[in-house]
């Protein structure tokens, strides 16, 4: 019996035939999960997850609660009050993704969209190269001590920076990233700083904004899966009136908060900066302190305290 004469809807018939299933006999031998293309079973996914690569944040405590760093193939949202270090963490990740394979990194490139400070990136890159040669000296006493070939300028060269001025450009860019990525396969992280900014101005129809944003989130997730790269979205905070008082919460509303896989909130706790895992399918909610130093994001204990103000 031919598939074309089966009593099923035209679109399903079309899909079957275009996938090469023309007769009923060719169809009967395949399992339904094979037919539903892209379906995996959980066992395969476990293996995949074990081989998943992560990008270090350069702060051991933060890496610990994140299970080793920012996950590739996932969308991670990072939010916090102004000046807490969102952009710092973004730039740090853009540099760290380039740590070569022999140093336990990914050796990839980075895409940075938005708020970028070249001077700061240079500082962090210099510190990163220094750390790598230090690591070399202490841990590799073998003869063929592989030299750190990377220069800070090489690191800067591997950061692709996009300047976005309106939300239209932002949408267009995210649509276009798909094509860009297939031309630049070595990109391992996309950082958007900030996903919020343009959407918080001049958008009148809030329902439309939510729909457009969730469309964007889906595209970013697909991007992360298809090219096995990490997508990091930096979000702003806003105040929300709940239970009789104002509380801080990440911007873009409740429906947006469903669209990211992981959500990390940066906040002040006393005198220290803390990161808190607000949402993650695989990680326990935990918090860890970190600090922002001249050399980038580091553990807070290693921070050399200067004269404290009264």
């Amino acid at each position: 019996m031919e598939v074309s004469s089966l009593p099923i809807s035209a679109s399903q018939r079309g899909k079957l035939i275009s996938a090469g299933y023309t007769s009923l006999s060719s169809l009967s031998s395949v399992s339904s999960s094979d037919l539903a293309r892209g379906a995996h079973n959980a066992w395969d996914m476990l293996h995949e997850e074990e081989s998943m690569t992560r990008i270090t944040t350069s702060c051991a405590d933060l890496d610990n609660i994140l299970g080793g760093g920012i996950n590739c193939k996932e969308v991670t949202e990072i939010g916090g009050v102004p000046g807490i270090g969102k952009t710092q963490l973004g730039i740090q990740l853009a540099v760290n993704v380039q740590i070569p394979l022999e140093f336990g990194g990914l050796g990839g490139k980075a895409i940075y969209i938005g708020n970028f400070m070249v001077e700061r990136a240079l500082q962090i890159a210099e510190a990163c190269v220094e750390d790598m040669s230090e690591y070399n000296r202490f841990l590799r006493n073998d003869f063929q001590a592989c030299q750190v070939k990377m220069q800070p300028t090489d690191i800067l060269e591997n950061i692709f920076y996009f300047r976005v001025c309106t939300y239209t450009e932002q949408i267009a860019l995210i649509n276009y990233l798909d094509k860009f990525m297939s031309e630049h396969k070595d990109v391992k992280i996309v950082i958007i700083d900030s996903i919020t900014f343009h959407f918080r101005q001049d958008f009148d129809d809030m329902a439309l904004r939510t729909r457009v944003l969730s469309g964007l989130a889906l595209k970013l997730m697909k991007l992360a899966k298809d090219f096995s790269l990490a997508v990091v979205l930096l979000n702003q905070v806003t105040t929300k009136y709940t239970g009789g008082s104002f509380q801080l919460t990440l911007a873009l509303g409740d429906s947006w908060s469903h669209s990211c896989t992981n959500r990390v909130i940066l906040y002040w706790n006393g005198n220290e900066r803390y990161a808190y895992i607000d949402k993650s399918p695989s990680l326990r909610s935990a918090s860890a302190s970190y600090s922002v130093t001249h050399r980038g994001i580091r553990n807070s204990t290693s921070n050399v305290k200067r004269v404290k103000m009264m």
Partner: protein
Amino acid sequence: MANKLISEMGLPRSIANIFAARNITTAKDALSLTEFELMELLDVGLSEVRSALAHISQIVSPRYQTALLLMEQRVQKEQSRGHLPTQLKGLDVALCGGIPVGVLTELVGPSGIGKTQFCLKLSLLASLQAHYGGLGGRVIYIDVESKFSSRRLIEIGAKSYPEIFHMKGMAQEIVFTSLQQIKVSLLQNQVKLLVIDSMAALVSGEHEPGPPWQHPLGWHISFIKSLAEFSRIPIVVTNQVRSQSRDESCQYSFQGQGRGKIVEDPPKHDSHLVAALGIHWAHAVTIRLVLESKSGQRFMKVAKSPISPPLAFPFNITSSGISLLNDDGMELMGPEINSIYCQGLSFGEICLYDLPWKKTPELIS
């Protein structure tokens, strides 16, 4: 880019006509809708919509630059590597050379602390010739509260007579329209610095009832930000302070609940102040300098900066403008970074000795 016409993008004739027939003429129109809304509106299949959107997106999306290229461009094109030196040694070192171009720098502080003084000094510096350490250009000074004093400016400078464009915005409307005109005059007049004193007086009250996204600031934030990027000049704005209201919490919902070890907020002084423009605005500025006073001493704090650690410098105001008492700066921790104090400045004293020009400008010759 966002208003680029779809008809000029070289889409296949048939699909371009459909877009035109449904009155979707610009890229903004097309990209503000979801794929399914477009399918419905245009009555075409998903694959056609996807390929059309992909085509439009590719044309509209900005081109990339590598960070290295960006840095080389800055070094070549811009004097003093893209910074306006403040001539305050410690601050310049902390900020890698001064007030950076292309981004917003904000001054926050209680009244009478020296925000306008700092703005005047910066205006003067920007108009100085390059070999004196300035930018050698003109300055647009948007003076909302009529605090600009040419006499004081000359007093600070004394040695040079800069050309300063002085716009007086008496009402909101005037300033708003002039904000739009600025873009043109920036290009025509070789302007090297834009000062807005003060932003908070332009727009008041983010906490007024009504949906928060419709507050009047929204449009200005993106306009000023894009102005800075596009013209590559430093933009300095001042912000006022207001006292913090009681129920304003600065905690997340996960903080404090069932976790007793959270440090209690320090008891609220009656002098507890916060910046007048709220958190939404604070996200938009790249550098925030807080001017405050503590037990009679004025401090300048780098409260938010991508390049500098949070440092505090004691300063005072003399006849030659703001000067730092030491250049090392003290590193700050935790909530101190963003708090604004106003203690122990006796204003009577200031009027008499510190700022004679402020109250009696006519008496100074």
